[in-house]
């Protein structure tokens, strides 16, 4: 078909599409109601399998993928035609097949051969299921045998047996067309006649089934049909015509053809408009998105960042001009400012992805964990449409999966325990996401047993954490995030190894966010993750020390004040603490940390910015506050390396570079420096 064209350039697109289709397939499979499957959903699953098979077949070098999807497609086809009842174990098998397919796609993407064992196993399972179904169909004589082809109902027009061996070339083609208009049926039959020998045909009010012996390929047949009808109305498989048809096929095909043609015009076109909406939805989805590499988007973001800086420079320069003389120039600059800001927002939104991308993987996790743990769990998600930066959304998956697993494993109790506690035996897990002032809040809530205060306390004391009976809940809960702390009674393969929560917290912190936990015994636990919307832009407070400007992330700034002499307490040579409303805060002078010359050394004339990092607070001494602004975060590591105490850099309006302070690192740096002194203060404040 495509000889001479190098298809390898399309591989990447195919893999991406296949991944998307598989993800869709999984979602739909999970959504299907086994007892009353929605035909639309079944069709959607079938189409996904069909598209992958088509793609894999076109390239001709993804044999395993094509074979596996072919088997899956056959089964799905029988299911959607109602010849095969849907059962839960079938859904499980289909889900498993989906996993194998995903692995196969990944293998092909990395130019490896897919796992042969997995392939053979899944194929034999699929074949078994097909045989089982074939046997069932044999017991039930096909209705086609008794009824005349022309009066068949559309459902019955479908074939009885699906091929048990993949791509059996010896069998004729079965072209089944649905939702077609009678006048099209005639045209289609003529086309089929041109392509090969029509063995048998069945025509319903709006469906047509043709068995054809032809030298053309299935794709050719489909392509021909697509001239007349939509692709989703056509399905081409290889299978034997119904028993009754084999007998008639001995007669010249012309004998049955006139009968069908006569019948066709007399049949009213029942739902002629029906295909339209489906076709339309499919096409808008197709043309509504465009696949672009992330590097390209990042490049645009960088360029727009440049534009914004240049524009800020223009504003700064033009501010000295006489507004009367330069009226038009100043107007233009103002216009530019607005446009640049809009453009920046628009470009940033390209990188934004809905949380659905993350949430959609949890129904599967919940389903599997629940059956493994013998629990009944219902999952609800809110705010799937909430958008988050792509880089963050990818990094949130692991921590969130961990939290969900924790809730499933330790949070929600077994049905018996729940009934005993007077609760609904079915546990409820809620995932939600919402925007709140430049941040996104993601919550994992379960209605399980809550955190066990006694157990955590016992464990904490055992492991030598400085806690006692009077430690407040909030402080105790924080221990869960300490390295090596786990309260699980037994280690399961889902969670409980005591690594994890500290990793979760570290991951969240590295994304510039923080994590909170609240819990009520017997009522459940809520874990709340607060993240910035994007890593590319940061709300910062610019501060000046000497002649240098630094940016403090605004999320860490709680307040700023000018220290008075009576608030200051000297604890050792050059070390001070600041007494603010009963709290002793260690005082860190930024000019000491970054060795800045000409800084304000008189503490009472400087400004103390109170920062919150992890669970501790400290005061940072700077000369002046310059202002709050959004800054574009620029990576330092790309051309240089990590600077201690600095997380990144940004470019200010005048084109100069300002460094963004890493508050966590600052805390750690000072901690190691005054470890001894801090413990002393810690004890004093506990006594108070």
């Amino acid at each position, binding site marked *: 078909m495509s000889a001479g064209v190098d298809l390898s350039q399309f591989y990447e697109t195919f893999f991406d599409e296949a991944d998307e289709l598989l993800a869709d397939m999984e979602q739909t499979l999970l959504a299907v109601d086994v007892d009353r499957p929605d035909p639309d959903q079944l069709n959607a699953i079938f189409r996904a399998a069909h598209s992958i098979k088509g793609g894999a077949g076109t390239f001709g070098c993804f044999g395993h993928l094509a074979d596996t999807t072919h088997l899956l497609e056959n089964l799905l086809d029988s299911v959607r035609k109602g010849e095969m009842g849907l059962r839960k174990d079938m859904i499980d098998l289909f889900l498993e097949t989906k996993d194998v397919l995903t692995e196969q796609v990944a293998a092909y993407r990395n130019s490896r051969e897919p796992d042969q064992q997995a392939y053979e196993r899944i194929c034999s399972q699929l074949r078994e299921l097909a045989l089982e179904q074939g046997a069932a169909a044999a017991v039930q004589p096909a209705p086609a045998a008794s009824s005349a082809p022309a009066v068949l109902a559309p459902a019955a027009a479908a074939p009885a047996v699906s091929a048990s061996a993949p791509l059996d070339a010896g069998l004729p083609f079965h072209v089944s067309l649905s939702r077609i208009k009678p006048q099209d049926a005639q045209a289609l039959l003529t086309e089929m006649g041109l392509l090969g020998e029509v063995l048998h045909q069945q025509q319903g009010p709006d469906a047509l089934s043709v068995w054809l012996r032809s030298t053309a390929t299935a794709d050719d047949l489909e392509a021909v049909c697509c001239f007349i009808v939509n692709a989703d109305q056509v399905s081409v498989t290889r299978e034997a015509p119904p028993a009754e048809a084999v007998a008639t096929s001995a007669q010249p095909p012309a004998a049955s053809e006139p009968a069908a043609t006569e019948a066709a015009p007399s049949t009213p076109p029942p739902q002629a408009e029906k295909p339209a909406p489906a076709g339309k939805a499919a096409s808008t989805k197709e043309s509504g998105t465009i696949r672009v590499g992330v590097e390209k988007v990042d490049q645009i973001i*960088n*360029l727009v*960042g*440049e534009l914004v*800086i240049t524009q800020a420079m223009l504003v700064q320069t033009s501010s000295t001009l006489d507004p009367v003389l330069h009226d038009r120039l100043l107007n233009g600059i103002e216009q530019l400012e607005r446009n640049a800001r809009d453009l920046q927002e628009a470009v940033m939104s390209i990188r934004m992805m809905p949380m659905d991308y993350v949430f959609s993987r949890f129904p599967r996790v919940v389903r599997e964990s629940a059956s493994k743990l013998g629990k009944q769990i219902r999952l609800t998600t809110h705010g799937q449409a909430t958008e988050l930066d792509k880089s963050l959304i990818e990094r949130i998956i692991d921590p969130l999966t961990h939290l969900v697993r924790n809730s499933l494993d330790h949070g929600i109790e077994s049905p018996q325990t729940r009934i005993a506690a007077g609760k609904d035996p079915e546990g409820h897990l809620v995932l939600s996401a919402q925007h709140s002032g430049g941040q996104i809040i993601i919550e994992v809530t379960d209605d399980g047993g809550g955190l066990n205060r006694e157990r955590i306390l016992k464990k904490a004391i055992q492991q030598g954490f400085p806690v006692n009976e009077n430690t407040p809940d909030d402080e105790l809960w924080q221990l869960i995030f300490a390295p090596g702390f786990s309260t699980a009674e037994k280690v399961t393969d889902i969670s409980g190894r005591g690594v994890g929560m500290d990793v979760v917290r570290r991951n969240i912190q590295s994304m510039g966010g923080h994590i909170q936990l609240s819990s009520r015994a017997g009522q459940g636990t809520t874990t709340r993750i607060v993240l910035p919307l994007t890593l590319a832009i940061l709300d910062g407070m610019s501060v000046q020390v000497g002649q*240098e400007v630094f940016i403090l992330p605004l999320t860490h700034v709680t307040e700023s004040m000018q220290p008075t002499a009576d608030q200051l307490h000297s604890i050792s040579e050059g070390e001070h603490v600041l007494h603010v409303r009963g709290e002793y805060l260690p005082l860190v002078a930024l000019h000491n*940390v*970054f*060795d*800045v010359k000409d800084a304000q050394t008189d503490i009472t004339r400087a400004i103390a910015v109170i920062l919150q990092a992890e669970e501790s607070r400290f005061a940072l001494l700077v000369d002046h506050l310059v202002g709050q602004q959004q800054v574009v975060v*620029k*990576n*330092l*590591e*790309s*051309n*240089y*390396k*990590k*600077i*201690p*105490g*600095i997380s990144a*850099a940004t*470019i200010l309006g005048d*084109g*100069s*570079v*300002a*460094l963004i302070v890493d508050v966590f690192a600052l805390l750690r740096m000072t901690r190691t420096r005054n470890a001894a002194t801090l413990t002393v203060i810690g004890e004093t404040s506990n006594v108070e």
Partner: protein
Amino acid sequence: MLNKADANQGQVDDTGKEFLVFTLGEQEYGIDILKVQEIRGYDSQSVTRIANVPSFIKGVTNLRGIIVPIVDMRIKFNLDSVEYNHQTVVVILNLASRVVGVVVDGVSDVLMLQPSQISAAPQFGTAFSTEYLTGIGTVGERMLILVDIEKLMTSSEMALVEQAVAA
């Protein structure tokens, strides 16, 4: 390859390599011109100091939206006079996907050197360790010290690249 180079040596000059010549104090140095991205005047206002780094790292600057570290070679190689005047320039180098700026006393020339004009680097006790030298170039009366700038800039000595065993 060798034969071809030998054959060409006598007559044609297209086997030569182009070098950017810059001065540090009295001495002229040559670096492969293909590593050079651009040359800019030095503006101390636009360089942001970084704390707790060796003194030869002047800081970082904004090069059209890219944050670029600036290294002063004169400080690195203990030259007597380190002045910043209108002749002081920054050579922006493009090395293995990194961009680095190098402050030198001035850029004088771009010269084409034939293999015959390049002799092996002697073992002498200059600022540059012989490890980073590719040879000595001779152009008339001038002597150029040819530096493997890529090797030098990515060395642990320059502390510009995150080392595997960094502190």
